[in-house]
């Protein structure tokens, strides 16, 4: 029993999740009041499920890049969100990042999925890190760096995560332009040639 250790207390809570709950419409209004036209679009999608036709809500927002960091700050002040993942779409000239948050979890059937889209130009694909507000964003930010070639400014750890060290630099597998396709094909070709030689 000598090995029993004294450790930090588990149940201490410093992060407060707000008790006040806004409806999906109020959440949209909250951000529109704050950022006005910088919220490019906001859509509330409601769907029902099961026999009792209970409703669940998805909010899809598109915001301007200039207010992104400020938006996250306001969101964290409203209620501490859970960041599920950040997805990326290669739209040609821009890369769209979609941050999937969920808010008001922990309350029975009250959760709202908040999906925030930000477009960054492909010529200068830069976005600020949100790790200072949500440290758990690190994994998904590192993934976006290597897979989509996004430069995350201020990221605490900028190493590669999934791609191996010998993967060529400046090739981003999830981009859809012709150059990336060529590069990926080249990788494939070499792979098959390697197999044939054996």
């Amino acid at each position, binding site marked *: *029993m000598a*090995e*029993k*250790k004294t*450790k*930090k*207390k*588990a*149940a*201490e*809570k*410093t*992060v407060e999740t707000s008790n006040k709950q806004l409806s999906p419409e109020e959440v949209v209004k909250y951000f529109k009041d704050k950022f006005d036209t910088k919220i490019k679009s906001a859509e509330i*999608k409601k*769907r*029902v*499920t*099961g*026999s*009792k036709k*209970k*409703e*669940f*809500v*998805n909010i*899809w927002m598109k915001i301007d890049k200039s207010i992104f960091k400020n938006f996250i700050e306001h969101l964290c002040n409203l209620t*501490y969100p*859970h*960041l*599920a*993942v950040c*997805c*990326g*779409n290669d739209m040609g000239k821009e890369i769209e990042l*979609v941050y*999937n948050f*969920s808010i008001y*979890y*922990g*309350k*029975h*059937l*009250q*959760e709202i*999925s908040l*999906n925030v889209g930000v477009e960054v130009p492909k010529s200068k694909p830069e976005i600020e890190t949100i790790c200072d507000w*949500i*440290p*758990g*964003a*690190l*994994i*998904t930010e590192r993934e976006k760096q290597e897979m989509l070639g996004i430069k995350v400014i201020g990221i605490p750890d900028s190493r*590669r*995560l*999934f*791609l*191996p060290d010998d993967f060529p630099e400046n090739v981003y*597998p*999830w981009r859809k332009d012709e150059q990336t396709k060529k590069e990926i094909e080249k990788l494939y070709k070499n792979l098959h040639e390697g197999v044939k030689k054996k």
Partner: protein
Amino acid sequence: MSEITKTTYQLPIGPIHPALKEPVMFKFEIDGEKIVDVDIELGHVHRAIEWTGMHRNPIQIIYLAERICGICSFVHPMAFCRAVENACDIQVPERADYLRVVHGELERIASHLLWAGVAAHEIGFDTVLFLTWEMREKVLDLIEYLTGNRVTKAILTIGGVRRDIKPENIPKIKETLKYFKDNYKKLSHVFLDDKTFKMRCMGCGILTYDDALKLCAVGPLARASGVKKDVRSDQPYAAYGDLDVDYMTPDKLTGEVNGDVYDRIIVRLLEVKQSIELIEKAIDQMPSGDIVSEPKIPKLLNYIKKTAGEGIGRDEAPRGEVIHYVKFDGENENPFTWKVRASTYANVLPWIPMLKGEQIADIPIVAASTDPCMSCTNRVTVIDKNKKYMLDKEQLHKLSVEKTRRLMR
């Protein structure tokens, strides 16, 4: 060991290691027996599934998604189907919603029992491994009886499920559920009252409430730290909205939250019980009707092809929330983007605070306590600057077993 001059040294574990059923690489900074720092490397089983999926049509992706993980072979296609249903506005028939609950909960029982066996094995309690895996066989038999296969079930399709549960199947389901109810007490007695389990698991691998929230932990790991987060309860999906799912946190049993390995065992055991009840409720309340909204696949694919939109599907896997994102451009059958976020992806960062300050012998049980599943996201070499020596997988497992034996004395 006398040549060592550094105060700390590095201990890489993985990518192949018995405590980690799949490849992942840990680099530990060790001071004596104590872990000072941890670094994690991923990507050893990155199979470019998302990239492959963007070159397949949605029906083909269902079967690809099923192969993301060998254990969660229901939840991944489920999350994908829900994402497509949300993006293209496809309504699922009520009966299919209930059937989805039954299959999802059967998978949860199988997964939690598998985990319980592995956890027991990690601390050298192999008789319990055999006990739990014997029970797991029963649920796999039932899954095979209902779907035709033990693991890759191919039960889901966009807009519903592919096989119905007929009235003549009900007695077999009830019989298996009765077996679990009869044996549940034995299982919880072994895990919760055993002195050895308590000694190894209490106060070990603590994750605080704050860390769980900030590092975006999901599933039983987050709930064991007191974070009420369970997609089944947070938002209505499938028939969970009708069935009143409660958050299973350890204080339901013990009255307090410690966030240690023992609490994670409690949460998973409570969830096995909850799953049994949910299956019973779902079968009793199941409405009659269709099991799929559009049985003609070419028609369905044609509809999806013409629809532009994006959607997310979230689903509570045995290990925590799984989320899939799809985007269709309205011209192609194949999704423009498909992103998969498995639960372990979110549970990687919480490993760091959990492992810091623990002993080397605790690595297997702490790592296993999150129920890691690397495909959804051996040997050990101990290296210090002057000298290199190997610690193989058997030895590390032995260290863990020895610690248990030492505590039992």
